């Protein structure tokens, strides 16, 4: 881990004992406290994603799961380590295999990486393969060098950059995909916005660009109450601006472009 200006770089990876343990212990506990779980899954091969989905499906606590987020920002061992989210074919394959393993009423969200030339192309591949929604964005690939030791500061050499520093990238990515939906270039599905949200105003940027829900990551490390606070601040901001319903604000910025543009 390294702190960076308004953000951090992490190469923490997916720390945890694996899906069997999660399905038998954590998920059961989450259910026992009444949580509704959007579970994130990952794998090293497309088949592994499907296996992970199947294990969750078989958990006695699967009814606590309200959706699955497919974290496709992992290197594909079968394709020279190229990240699934950077290749439309691999991304589509993962989504299609996971879709088969889950009941129809469980929505799946493909979590996209911003480190691509054309994020709309990846979004299209995922939606066409059966994704019910998209989560945008995962971290950006970054690197920090420790200038005392003159070696990479994080154990993984490169790491994922997150926090307010990447918020403009999140807004841009959500904007581009939402615009493609509005223009009919890809089917319309809900977008979960994530990336650099620290305040209600930050969340409003992602919403106005096209996000129907918000996740708060790195800001939670600074302020553990951030998710609840952001929610309250966003509600207040929407009320201030006279929105009767949250959904009226989703993608609103697309209707307010400068006509001279």
């Amino acid at each position, binding site marked *: *881990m390294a702190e960076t200006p308004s953000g951090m770089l*992490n190469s923490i990876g*997916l720390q945890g004992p*694996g899906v069997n343990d999660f399905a038998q212990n954590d998920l059961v506990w989450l259910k026992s406290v009444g949580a509704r779980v959007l579970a994130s899954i990952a794998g090293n091969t497309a088949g592994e994603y499907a296996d992970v989905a199947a294990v969750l499906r078989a958990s006695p606590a699967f009814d606590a799961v309200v959706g699955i987020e497919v974290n496709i920002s992992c290197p594909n061992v079968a394709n020279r380590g190229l990240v699934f989210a950077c290749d439309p074919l691999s991304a589509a394959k993962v989504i299609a295999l996971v879709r088969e393993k889950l009941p129809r009423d469980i929505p799946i969200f493909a979590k996209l990486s911003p480190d691509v030339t054309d994020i709309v192309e990846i979004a299209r591949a995922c939606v066409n393969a059966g994704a019910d929604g998209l989560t945008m964005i995962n971290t950006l690939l970054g690197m920090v060098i420790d200038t005392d030791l003159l070696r990479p500061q994080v154990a993984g050499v490169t790491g994922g950059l997150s926090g*307010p520093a990447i918020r403009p990238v999140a807004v841009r990515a959500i904007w581009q995909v939402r615009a493609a939906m509005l223009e009919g270039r890809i089917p319309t599905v809900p977008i979960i916005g994530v990336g650099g949200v620290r305040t209600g105003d930050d969340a409003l940027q992602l919403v106005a660009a096209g996000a129907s829900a918000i996740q708060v990551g790195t800001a939670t490390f600074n302020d553990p109450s951030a998710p609840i606070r952001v929610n309250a601040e966003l509600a207040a901001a929407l009320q201030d601006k006279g929105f009767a319903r949250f959904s009226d604000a989703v993608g609103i910025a697309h209707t307010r472009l400068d006509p001279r543009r």
Partner: protein
Amino acid sequence: MSETSQERTPQVAGELIATRRVGAYHHLTFVAPGVAELAKPGQFVALAVGGDTSANLLRRCFSIHKVSPSGTYGGTVDVVVAARGPGTRWLAGLGAHHEVNIIGPLGRPFPLPKEPVACVLVGGGYGSAPLFWLAAALRERGCHVEMILGAATEDRLFGVIEARRAADGVTVTTDDGSMGVKGWVSDVLPEVIRRSHAEVVYGCGPMAMLRSITEVAAAEGAVAQVAVEESMACGIGVCMTCVMPVVGADGQTRMVRSCVDGPVFRGDRVRWDAFESGWGRVPDDAYGAAAMRGH
């Protein structure tokens, strides 16, 4: 899920009411209502740095040096800060009446022995900060308390005078011999354990020191309880930055979060072999290691 993480830990705007230089360190006292009342020796606080619009988002963690639950200003919490990077330099430069957002107390405290056995408390550098009120708690139970304070140089020792009040015997070491015995705390530890017939060794300081006092304690037949200093980003259990390999009672190594399952561990349970490169590794035999590979 650890039990300690389920209680609601206070998060308060702490007013800095006193700040003073102590050798190479800055000793800060905050009014932190609610924190002091709950805290136990070995626990820590996580401070936000740089103010409300700071670009340094990650919390900085500090052992609680002492608490006064009912001071004139309400409960106060003291920390000892070594100014190193941007966050600690910002804290060190603060004047009285500044507010700092504080979360705490966090982590598991030092376990106290049930019997009044002799104990040796070993602090490296500012690692001695949490040991004085630990010493008081031990002496209250009738334990004989020895302290060993070590540092590279005299100005990096913390609390030598306080130690003479807090403990029944004090030994000081410095790498350069500028104060006390020239050498490391682990050089004098065997003799102190033998002389006092100590059954528990408490340690706080750099990882390499904790490893060597664990080895010395084992060789002398004492139990080591060490407070580790693993890099932390949140301090509250949500980011996984601080995971490290620790052996459980069942003999299985697991990657555990040192902020909620530590920072105090039994020394002989820590997989010191994983820290050799300076980058914490996941040992091959750790529970779930295969699932963590490749990501």
